[in-house]
């Protein structure tokens, strides 16, 4: 027998044991064996499908779906998993309900883990009402009951778990604890002891017959009075509180239902709000992109247009217009590779020829009294070459003429400090009043 065959046999053995335990409703045990079978042979479709069924029976719908989907993927034809998936999805909304139940359980678990036991208990009670086979929810609920020493309710939840999965290790452990706290463990021990022992009747044992005692008229009236009194006490101390509890429980359930609805509505509202915000952000971005492309003077389209006008000015040998257009163009928005090559050539040419043109334009504008335009041309000049004392001096004179003494003096200072040997230095000193 080769190794692979041995592996298949091992997988089959594990599957058989798992199946046996599943028949005995030891679902936890069966799941362990089936998982082991799949570790040996992942193509064991029966083992995988049965494992899915067990998960489904334990209320773990997602785990069941995983096993069945994987099963179909590994064996697409003639596979029972197809039928199971069909069953789960057949009833409209069933999957959605299962999904909501799991979400509620996770929420209840979060409540329990953060110490909000009351909220967790309310939520879990609703969950096990909706999905009575959700073992994990029963176990958590019973643990919370045990933590609050409500062993009767804990015991009831655990009985339900053990009815679904009769050897569930956690449920068995909890049940032992509950029994030890309620004294049932001792009762069971006694019962067990009595089942194997009895005392034979002795000769001197006497069986006493029940006595009959005739009541007098007064005694009857007193007995009726006592009966009425006990009746009233029973109503006051047992029936009324039970009714109150029932009403409270009903009220809590209603509150919880409203809370659930509110939560869902809030979730939906948050989702829609986020969607709206996303759409608004997308719209703003699209508008910005559009503006960048075709909008104001800084737009991409306008820069390409300016580049075309510069080329036209070159063609007409009109360098002054070319410079005027060039200095106001935003070269960073030219990204087309061919255009960038042309732009590089223009930039090289402008570095040589633009300063003279800009100086001339600046002087013309200053002469015409258009100081703002003059400063604009001089600043662009400085962008290309900031070591010309004449330009700095001219700018200083314009600022002085505009009444901006501080800036003017600062610029005169630059001429005096940096170009001390030039003729302009002496003029700058005079202008500053040295």
């Amino acid at each position: 027998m080769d190794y692979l065959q041995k592996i298949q046999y091992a997988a089959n053995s594990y599957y058989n044991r798992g199946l046996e335990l599943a028949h005995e409703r030891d679902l936890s045990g069966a799941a362990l064996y089936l998982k082991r079978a799949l570790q040996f042979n992942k193509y064991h479709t029966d083992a995988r499908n049965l494992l899915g069924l067990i998960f489904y029976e334990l209320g773990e719908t997602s785990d069941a779906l995983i096993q069945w989907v994987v099963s179909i993927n590994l064996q697409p034809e003639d596979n029972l998993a197809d039928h199971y998936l069909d069953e789960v999805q057949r009833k409209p909304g069933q999957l959605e309900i299962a999904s909501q139940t799991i979400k509620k359980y996770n929420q209840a678990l979060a409540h329990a883990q953060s110490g909000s036991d009351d909220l967790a208990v309310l939520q879990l009670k609703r969950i096990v009402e909706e999905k009575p086979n959700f073992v994990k929810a029963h176990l958590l609920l019973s643990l919370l009951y045990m933590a609050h020493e409500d062993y009767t309710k804990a015991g009831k939840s655990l009985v339900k778990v053990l009815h679904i999965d009769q050897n569930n290790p956690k449920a068995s452990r909890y049940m032992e604890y509950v029994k030890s706290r309620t004294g049932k463990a001792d009762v069971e021990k006694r019962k067990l002891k009595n089942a194997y022992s009895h005392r034979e009747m002795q000769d001197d044992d006497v069986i006493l017959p029940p006595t009959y005692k005739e009541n007098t008229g007064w005694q009857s009236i007193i007995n009726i009075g006592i009966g009425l009194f006990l009746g009233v006490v029973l109503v006051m101390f047992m029936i009324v509180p039970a009714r109150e509890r029932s009403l409270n429980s009903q009220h809590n359930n209603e509150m919880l239902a409203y809370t659930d609805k509110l939560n869902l509505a809030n979730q939906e509202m948050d989702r829609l709000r986020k969607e709206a915000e996303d759409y608004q952000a997308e719209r703003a971005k699209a508008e910005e992109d559009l503006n960048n492309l075709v909008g104001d003077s800084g737009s991409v389209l306008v820069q390409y247009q300016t580049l075309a006008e510069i080329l036209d000015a070159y063609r007409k040998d009109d360098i002054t217009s070319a410079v005027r257009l060039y200095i106001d163009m935003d070269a960073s928005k030219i990204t087309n590779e061919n255009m960038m090559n042309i732009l590089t050539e223009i930039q090289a040419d402008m570095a040589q020829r633009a300063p003279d043109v800009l100086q001339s334009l600046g002087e013309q504008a200053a002469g015409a009294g258009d100081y703002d335009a003059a400063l604009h041309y001089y600043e662009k000049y400085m962008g290309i070459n900031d070591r010309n004392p004449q330009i700095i001096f001219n700018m200083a004179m314009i600022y002085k003429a505009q009444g901006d003494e501080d800036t003017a003096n600062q610029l005169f200072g630059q001429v005096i400090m940096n170009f001390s040997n030039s003729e302009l230095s002496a003029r700058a000193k005079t202008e500053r009043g040295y």
Partner: protein
Amino acid sequence: MINFEEEIERFRPSLEVEAVSDTIMKSDITDMADIMMEIMKEIREK
């Protein structure tokens, strides 16, 4: 004796239905047969 705090911490959230496809994508279903085949292939190559 049961320590309730520890016991509650041991509970894990249930897998949500929305996470099923993601879990399937991430799941590793390598079995013993795959491992054995791999080993035999390595031996043959040597």
